[in-house]
């Protein structure tokens, strides 16, 4: 029977899990990183990490998973963010009413101390009646004490909650988790057991629990003078200011573009690609040439132009690795400083018109790094409606950094007018598609309710830890998908299918998009690697209008194979395919429209 870690989102559960078990887990600072249950062993104990939730019910997928984990628990470790004691104690009190053995781990005590605040842990322990341990999991503090406590096996369950006496017999027979769920108006259980609790029960329990949590926090948490400094308050004012807030946003975006779009995506990636092409690729080709006959399928698949050891390795090491690392570094800084939630607050009113709330700023920004990763991150959004809208916007209108790099290069030769035209077309489509989806899909966007943590300096150790685990996790998850993509192209190339595509689709491209037939395979390659598609346009000797058409069409055209697979997994096969086919339709229609309008303007 396992020890289950339970806590609010972003309290450091995954860090605690890793510190306990030594096992590598993806750690992040926005809610929703742990969607499944992660299991490992520590000192003879099975330890499970559950998705972060603000309460125990079955409102969202994360909560369902966590409820199921708690159902299996032998012992609960409730990880609490000590800085957010009042908020987190709500879940603590709810967990306590399960009357299961439980330990409260007060995480982030280092930050409480640094802020000059004081938390009376022994007092809280007496008031709660369960063991309370102080910890700072990123530094390993409190973990030995927790292990000792778990191994001693002497944790007693808290007393049964009073409501157990009021339960009807059908519910009395159920587990503690079911008893709590039923008592707090879980519809599924009421239906299954053919009996419902008194109306207004959940509300009454929630209000009582909230008041108790607030009372406990104000009794045992004392704020020092150091906490929220004057500079923090002033900076907070600037970030949310109607004018200065936007100025900061423009400056941040400019810096991001300079660092990622120019320094990393162009210079570093270009240098690394050239390096690998001159060293690794010839070396591996020479090393394997005795084993693989030139022109054979094996040679094509492993060391050919689109081979696993040549293209996939180059792609992962020279392109994805630096881009994702750079992006994650910047994102980690924005997150750890507390800027992202403020940005979400500032942009909320605009996102509402697209059927999203400010929270979606995180996956949408990530999309400019890597659409595959961003699509995975749509999990942090509240409901299916929001996730659908964000996934469509990502799959259709957001160019990933690999693509931005090449498209910038394509348009740069033409002058600012064409670059602006491209940006205007894509931005208008982004707004149009979002607005249309908001109107078409039933329901309304969920209003924003977002925690704004105090602004703080990022800590290098935290950043490194986060970037390393996220980049590693992403490469492990997406690497095989990219390999699969290369294999498909290598097969197509070897069998000559790529060439026949050109002859088959060429005339259509010429008539419909006014592009030369040689551009057709570029679109297919774009499915494997989105920047490949754009590179294909370099070579064809196109006019400015054709380059604009090509850039717009390729941006909107299907996302790469890795994002497609993630899209199918996250949104389901049916909706995933709809989004995928929709991107082809919108790309071709917009491409055709852009070609004709631009020709007309250029002609006039």
């Amino acid at each position, binding site marked *: 029977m396992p020890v289950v870690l339970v806590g609010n989102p972003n309290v450091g559960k995954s860090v605690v899990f890793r510190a306990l078990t030594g096992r590598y887990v993806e750690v992040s600072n926005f809610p929703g990183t742990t969607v499944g249950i992660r299991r490992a062993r520590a000192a003879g104990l099975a330890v499970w990490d559950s998705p972060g939730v603000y309460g125990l019910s079955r409102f969202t997928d994360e909560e369902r998973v966590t409820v199921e984990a708690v159902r299996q628990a032998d012992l609960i470790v409730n990880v609490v963010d000590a800085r957010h004691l009042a908020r987190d104690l709500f879940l603590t009190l709810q967990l306590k009413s399960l009357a299961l053995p439980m330990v409260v781990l007060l995480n982030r005590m280092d930050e409480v101390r640094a802020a000059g605040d004081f938390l009376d842990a022994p007092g809280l322990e007496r008031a709660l009646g369960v063991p309370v341990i102080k910890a700072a999991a990123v530094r390993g503090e409190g973990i030995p004490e927790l292990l000792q406590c778990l191994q001693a096996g002497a944790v007693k369950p808290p007393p049964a909650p009073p409501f157990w006496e009021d339960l009807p017999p059908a519910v009395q027979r159920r587990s503690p988790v079911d008893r709590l769920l039923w008592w707090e108006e879980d519809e599924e259980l009421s239906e299954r057991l053919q009996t419902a609790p008194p109306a207004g029960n*959940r509300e009454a329990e929630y209000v009582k629990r909230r008041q108790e949590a607030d009372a406990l926090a104000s009794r045992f948490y004392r704020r020092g003078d150091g906490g929220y400094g004057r500079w923090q308050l002033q900076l907070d004012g600037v970030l949310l200011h109607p004018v200065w807030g936007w100025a900061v946003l423009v400056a941040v975006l400019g810096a991001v573009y300079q660092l990622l779009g120019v320094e990393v995506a162009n210079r570093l990636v270009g240098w690394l690609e050239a390096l690998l092409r001159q060293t690794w690729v010839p070396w591996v080709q020479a090393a394997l040439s005795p084993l693989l006959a030139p022109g054979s399928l094996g040679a094509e698949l492993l060391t050919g132009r689109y081979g696993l050891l040549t293209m996939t390795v180059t792609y992962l090491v020279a392109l994805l690795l630096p881009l994702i690392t750079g992006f994650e570094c910047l994102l980690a800084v924005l997150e750890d400083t507390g800027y992202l939630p403020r940005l979400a607050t500032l942009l909320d009113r605009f996102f509402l018109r697209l059927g999203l709330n400010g929270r979606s700023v995180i996956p949408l920004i990530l999309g400019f790094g890597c659409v595959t990763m961003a699509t995975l991150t749509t999990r942090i959004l509240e409901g299916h409606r929001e996730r659908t809208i964000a996934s469509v916007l990502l799959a259709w209108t957001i160019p990933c950094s690999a693509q931005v790099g090449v498209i910038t290069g394509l348009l740069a030769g033409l002058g600012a007018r064409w670059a602006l035209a491209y940006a205007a077309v894509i931005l208008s489509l982004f707004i149009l598609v979002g607005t249309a989806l908001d109107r078409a899909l039933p329901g309304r966007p969920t209003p924003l309710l977002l925690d*704004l943590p105090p602004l703080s300096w990022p800590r290098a150790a935290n950043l490194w830890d986060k970037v390393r685990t996220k980049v590693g996790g992403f490469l492990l998850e997406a690497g095989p998908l990219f390999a699969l993509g290369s294999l498909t192209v290598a097969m197509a190339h070897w069998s000559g299918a790529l060439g026949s595509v050109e002859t088959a689709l060429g005339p259509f491209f010429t008539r419909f998009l006014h592009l030369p037939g040689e551009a057709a395979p570029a679109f297919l390659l774009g499915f494997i690697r989105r920047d490949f598609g754009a590179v294909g346009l370099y070579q064809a000797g196109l006019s400015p209008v054709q380059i604009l058409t090509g850039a717009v069409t390729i941006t909107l055209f299907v996302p790469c194979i890795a994002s497609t697979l993630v899209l199918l997994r996250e949104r389901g096969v049916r909706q995933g395919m709809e989004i995928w086919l929709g991107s082809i339709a919108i790309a071709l229609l917009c491409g055709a429209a852009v070609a004709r309008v631009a020709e007309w303007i250029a002609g006039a």
Partner: protein
Amino acid sequence: MQLDQVPVGRTVVVRSVHPPTLRSQALRLGIGVGARLEVVRRLRGGPVVVRSTAGQLAVGKELAQGIEVEAL
């Protein structure tokens, strides 16, 4: 009075939270009947930023319109 109309700097007490779908989530995050909220900032046409015992929260406009408060 509704939360979205409270002047910046004022502290208020929550009397009721209307949208029932959001009531539970609001309670979990520290906004419940009887909670004291200090309005820190209001973004024009956008969210209201409040400070409660649980920390600072950004409350979307629609939700803020559904939170009935009373001045202290």
